[in-house]
């Protein structure tokens, strides 16, 4: 397994190098002068030239690339044109909100998807199955931005029971920064009121983000379990008098886990990309909104850094998924 991991890590390095070259090249090919953007529309030519020199944009392209790569190895992604802060600092500021959102959404989609998919398969053709199929079709076919807007309309404007967005109520001070996860930091600060407020603010965005992903898992679990439930060993287990609950849980569900894990890994990409719109609509200061701002503001340094970070995260998640196959199924061998 160690060899497998090493091989994957080496290929990962090549992949990230490719991403680096590609994003750097794209940023330089695309039209637009970051120096003018920083200096502003009212700046004279002298000020724009000075900013260009400060950013090193007047250097030959090869030299700019060397600076860029060496900066990355020192954890320096350059400076954002929009926020003017070091991008590494911006990532530390904005990434936790996205992480918190994606982690909670992935847990809900996994737990909900497996539970509903299993219930649907077990009650195939029954009312539960029909209801779950409606949920999964709804989740797959309705765009998350629409769901987000409707959720805001119903739960904030009409019913007034949930906040429209943001991470905490207006005027409430953030807990001291430890992890950047509000739910964790508020607990570390011993502030249960903040913890409850943070969770309340997470309900709508997490649910909206989780639904499409959960719909995919429901479909996979249902199909896989239906196949497994018709297998000989399930009939044998039933014949041996094992309780239906044990049959479903230990025999059927346990043997359906591999495709679920695969889909779960793939879904992380869906969740990260879905976070862009969800953060925008729910006004969450996460990496998704930061990315949207970077794209609309042609903040190339930020776009390059985010692409690299998200690619790395995606690669790591898929590596973990591959490794988990071994744990879940002893027959799987990693070569």
């Amino acid at each position, binding site marked *: 397994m160690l060899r497998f991991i090493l091989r994957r890590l080496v290929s990962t390095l090549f992949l990230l190098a490719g991403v680096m070259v590609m994003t750097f090249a794209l940023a330089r090919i695309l039209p637009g*002068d970051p120096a003018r953007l920083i200096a502003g529309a009212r700046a004279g030519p002298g000020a724009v030239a000075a*900013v260009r020199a400060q950013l090193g944009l007047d250097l030959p392209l090869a030299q700019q690339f060397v600076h860029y790569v060496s900066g990355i190895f020192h954890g320096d992604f350059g400076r954002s044109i929009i926020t003017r802060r070091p991008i590494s600092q911006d990532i530390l500021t904005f990434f936790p909100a996205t992480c918190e959102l994606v982690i909670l959404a992935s847990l809900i989609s996994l737990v909900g998807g497996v539970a509903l998919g299993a219930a649907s398969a077990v009650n195939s*053709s029954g009312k539960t199955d029909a209801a779950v199929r409606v949920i999964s079709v709804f989740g797959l076919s309705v765009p998350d931005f629409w769901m987000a807007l409707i959720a805001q309309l119903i739960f904030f404007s009409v019913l007034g029971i949930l906040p429209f967005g943001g*991470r905490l109520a207006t005027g409430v001070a953030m807990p001291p920064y430890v992890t950047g996860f509000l739910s964790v930091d508020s607990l570390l600060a011993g502030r249960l009121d903040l913890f409850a407020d943070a969770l309340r603010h997470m309900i709508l965005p997490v649910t909206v983000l989780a639904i499409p992903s959960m719909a995919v898992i429901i479909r996979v679990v249902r199909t896989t379990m239906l196949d497994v439930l018709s297998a000989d060993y399930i009939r044998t287990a039933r014949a041996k008098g094992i309780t239906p609950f044990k049959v479903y849980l230990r025999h059927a569900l346990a043997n359906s886990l591999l495709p679920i894990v695969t889909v779960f890994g793939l879904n992380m990409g869906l969740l990260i990309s879905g976070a862009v719109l969800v953060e925008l609509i729910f006004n969450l200061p996460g990496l998704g909104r930061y990315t949207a701002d970077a794209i609309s503001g042609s903040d190339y340094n930020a776009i390059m850094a985010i692409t690299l970070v998200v690619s790395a995260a995606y690669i790591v998640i898929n590596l973990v998924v591959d490794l988990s196959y071994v744990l879940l199924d002893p027959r799987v061998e990693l070569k």
Partner: protein
Amino acid sequence: MTGDDSKRSHAFNQAWHLTRRHFLAGTAAFGAAAIGRVPMSHAATPDLPIGNRDPKTLVVVVDATVENLDPATNVEWAYGLSPIYETLTVLDGAEALKVKPSLAKAFTSSDDKMIWTFELPAGVKFHDGTDCDANAVKAAITRTITRPGGTFATSWQIDDPEKQIVVKNATTLEFHLTEARPFFDLEVSSQYGFWIASPTAAQKNSKGANDMGSEFLQSHPVGCGPYKMESFNPGQDITYVRFDEFHGGWDHPHFERVITKTIPVSATRRQLLEAGEVDIALRMEPQDTVELRNDPRFVIQDTSTATVQYVVFATDGKLADPRVRQAICHAFDHDSYLRDVVLGTADKPRSVFPSQMQGVGDESYVLPFDLEKAKALLAEANFPAGSELTVTYYSGFGDTECQLLQGWLSELGITLHLQEKSFSAFLDEFFGDAPADQRADLFYFSWWPNVDHPYNYAWSLFSGAATAASGNAGRYANDEVTKLIDELRQKLIDTEQAQKVKRLAQILTVENPAWLPIQQERMQFVARRDIKGMVNNPIYVATLDIYNLSRSA
């Protein structure tokens, strides 16, 4: 469909069959519930409760985050700076030409207007506790002028701050100018580059000669204004609390805390206002403004600004002949655009100058919508039928206006290609030096003056001596225009100078058009009815005088 699927489908239909009666009943119930909760019955309840919010805290929702709070480099809206910093003088209320003391308690000028003296009150402190005396003010201005790559290095028009800014004593500061500047007080009241930041904070946290404390001040602003920053959550909100030692005092009603929240979507800003969660919303979409205008729970501070949105003509290409530009000007129907598209939330421009600009007068120079006249002008100019033109605009700004122009130009036999670019790519082309055949023929942009003076507004845009990089993106060159603009430099606008301004408006809008002005923006601040003291100055773009706001009991 397999047999199993068919059975499942049947089972589904049985389980989820919804009669039309049930559907209608459910929809009606939901609708009734929604109407009951949505605040549509506002006529009966003009006072919107603020719930458990602190009445001494003001919550303002804005469309864009101010990420940079260093006044030496901030090129964004100044609403983030105005609570923290002060300028030496400030424009009085909504007056564009009347100055009142701010950080300086008094100011005088020599007869030749080459020496300006500002008197500071004694004992003024920055938020970091250091003295805001004449030496500190000089150091702050010097930093703005000398910081490499500083956008506002030329704002003060002072080449040698060490010599030209003279500290007479701890509270007296003199500016020795190299030419007579009769409205220097108006200039130092401007919002671009004139705020005073603590030089001690800048120096203590400087990362070198290129930085001069800018990185620190961007997120840790230190001024001497009425509020100091309490917290800054990038992309989310900024909280300010009152600065107890503010030299202006806290005797009359003020807010103790101010929170500016960034909510990019206009509809969401409106929802928050209607739910009573916020007090003021800036920059709403026309539809939201129009609807809130009829809501008695809110007041709308609706004032004209000095910002003109325009289509600039590239005069060095296909549009070199003024008659072709005149024809295009005749092909834009301002009246229907302002009525049907922007729903009356903007003003009809009168010329390339903002209507309130000194000297420009009340006449309208904008060429009337007349497609027949436009066709005749094109024929006279031998402009080939079936010509193709390109207009460039940036994402989210000018797309509707360019589409309208496209429609009207098609009636003249001109095909207008729309080219939407990112803001960065747009600026690159707009201010760039590419030859005419590699640029668009028209651009959509907007501009406003730093000071209500025609020279300040016109030189960089229309003078033959100004390059595209300076702002003359149309590469406009007209000897009479250049001469008239030069003659206005540092001149008070009396009757004689006003004639020159009118002549400029006539040439630039009618005879040899540089631009097609599309609209003059209005600024609409929507506030709860209990918020008092809202004033908008046309020169200060989207900037609230937060210190003078209060909540009525």
